[in-house]
């Protein structure tokens, strides 16, 4: 499988301008993605699953302004830092989490040429960078000078580290089949592939890597500390775990980090398993235009699954959570890799 030759951009612009444009695009996609996910799934889908309407008044039409209004409210609140907190670490923690989210968006492609940086080790890079948020969580818990925040942060760190492994191992099967770690390459593999000789649908890797997809979703759910894995955040002795001392715009950073990462993980899942921005037989500039829309649709489908599970299930206790990761998910994902390897060699 040959790697696609990078197509040069039609315009010849100075390198600094391109970097600035890419930075701006990513910086605007993060809050936009977080807002859209938050509004559609957290406010509206959750409400309808609970037989109620959700916000209807803010902004007039079905309350679309609610989250933006919440954001404005957060920004104008007083910035309270506990007296005994470690100021620099306290202020840096949400930024670390947000940086990890930002770095995730760099590799997710939205079109054949619409990617900030198409790294050869895209998958490896994405999964490595997503674990930076653990540092942010630990910093937040430690710097808060609050027993309960520290306990919540330790629980969260244990959970996040435990679920890194199934996350990574689930993706190895995809990499084996596609033959490349570059996300753009995986998308092209799915676009140009064929099912038993018929290439109408391409070859979305979810068909052979279904278990990998499920394990990836479960591990992503745990990485986002969402129910059923939200013990660090929800029960946590009184309030919000490691975020308990954060108010105002710092809390907004955590919130945006959470939903931004959800958007990014859904994007990675859509890229790895569902074909990303690709529609079979659509190439060139048309793919550049349709690519973001197609990717967005697939991201919404994957997010729907993530949030559907979030609103339906009760939460696991911490020890049951760890048992699931170490005793069930990791052996299953190892078996998945073994099976994929065997099939790749035999067929």
């Amino acid at each position, binding site marked *: 499988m040959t790697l696609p030759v990078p197509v040069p951009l039609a315009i010849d612009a100075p390198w600094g301008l391109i970097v600035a444009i890419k930075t701006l695009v990513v910086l605007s996609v993060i809050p936009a993605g977080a807002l859209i996910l938050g509004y559609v799934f957290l406010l509206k889908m959750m409400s309808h699953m609970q037989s109620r309407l959700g916000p209807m008044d803010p902004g007039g039409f079905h309350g679309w302004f609610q989250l933006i209004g919440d954001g404005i409210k957060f920004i104008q609140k007083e910035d309270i830092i506990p007296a005994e907190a470690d100021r620099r670490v306290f202020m840096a923690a949400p930024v670390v989490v947000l940086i990890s989210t930002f770095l995730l968006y760099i590799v997710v492609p939205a079109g054949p040429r619409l990617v900030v940086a198409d790294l050869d080790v895209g998958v490896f890079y994405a999964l490595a960078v997503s674990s930076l948020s653990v540092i942010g969580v630990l910093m937040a818990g430690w710097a808060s000078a609050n027993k309960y925040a520290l306990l919540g942060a330790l629980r969260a760190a244990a959970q996040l580290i435990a679920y890194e492994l199934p996350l990574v191992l689930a993706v190895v099967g995809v990499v084996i089949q596609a033959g490349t770690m570059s996300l753009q390459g995986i998308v092209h593999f799915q676009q140009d592939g064929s099912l038993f000789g018929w290439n109408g649908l391409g070859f979305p890797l979810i068909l052979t890597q279904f278990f990998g997809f499920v394990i990836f979703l479960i591990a992503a759910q745990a990485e986002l500390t969402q129910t059923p894995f939200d013990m660090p955040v929800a029960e946590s002795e009184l309030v919000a775990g490691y975020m308990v001392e954060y108010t105002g715009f710092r809390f907004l950073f955590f919130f945006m980090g959470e939903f931004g990462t959800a958007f990014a993980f859904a994007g990675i899942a859509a890229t790895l398993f569902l074909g990303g921005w690709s529609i079979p037989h659509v190439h060139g500039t048309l793919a550049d235009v349709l690519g973001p829309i197609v990717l967005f649709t697939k991201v919404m489908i994957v997010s729907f699954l993530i949030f559907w599970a979030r609103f*339906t299930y009760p939460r696991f206790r911490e020890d049951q959570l760890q048992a699931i990761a170490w005793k069930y998910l990791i052996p299953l994902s190892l078996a998945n890799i073994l099976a994929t390897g065997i099939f790749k060699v035999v067929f």
Partner: protein
Amino acid sequence: MTLDFRAEALIQKHLADARINIELETEGMVLNLGPQHPATHGTLRVVVKLDGERVVSADPVIGYMHRGYEKLTEFRTYPQITTLINRIDWLSSFANEVPFIHGAELLMGVEAPPRAEYIRTILTELSRIATFVLFLGEMALQVGAITPAFYGFRDREHVLNLIEAATGGRFHPNFNRIGGLKVDLPQGWIDETRRVMKKIFDSVDDFEGLVVGNEIFAVRTRGVGVIPAGVGAAYGVSGSNLRASGVDWDLRRDGPEYLVYKDLDWRVWTHSDGDSFARYWVRMQETRESCRMVLQMLDGLPAGPIMAKVPRIIKVPEGEVWVNTENPLGEMGYYLISKGATGPFRTKIRSASFSNVSILPWLLKGVYVPDIITILASLYFILGDIDR
């Protein structure tokens, strides 16, 4: 200056704790599941001593909501007291009035006419349904699922609308009078109740699919907070909590006769495990059983008056009586002492949740912190019932 024995005991306890801490060089953390906590239904405070994640000792502190009911009843007349005791267990408020009025009727030698007894039973069972449907939703909320809580409130609304149509008040009906009921049912109520019962059946099926069948819920609640039958009975735990431990005891069938339960065809549900899952399951089955009972009673509702002949100003003759009934939360009882006035001389209120909560120090030893929440949710107490 001598201290009284309670202060002395408290000082000795602190000294003993300090000695243990110095000897073992451990510092157990004291966690205050304070009066304000989303997991306790109201102002219950549980002072929990932790060793890592495990509970070493638990002390419930009650009384934050004490309203002085027994003192209030000393200076009120019977209709006024009926209004007040609605508010002891505010979720199943009709059921609180029943034993009190029944006791007064026993002392007076007055029997309510059959139609009144039937309607009283229907309303008691409706309040049981309302309480349990909320429990089904809200225990799932404590365990982590946010959606069933909304279903619980939504379906409880149907029952509350029924109670409002009949009595005028959703939460506090204030409908019982000595000798019968205040006024008869409005037109169309029986058909509406039949429709609502069908909705409740569907909703309990939803809960079964969403919560009971859920493996995560099972893993969180099975084996958690097991109350052996003997221990439960010794602590005075009653109601569905005891039936979930396998004890086949229901005051509607086994206690002295009251209301019309002997005329109905119904069964008592028990479960042998005694854990939190069993308590959820038993209450779910009892909700369905109450729906069936209400449908039977609607079919067999006799016609006739709803108030017996009682004088205008009711003075209950001298005497003492103890009446206990199967309330949704457990066994509730009133000991009425009357000296012939328009109000009782003394009322002692035995509330179910007070005894249910007394088992917490024994039950919470050695469990994990998240399990405390599950156990508190499964015991299902209401603070107004504990503190009165």
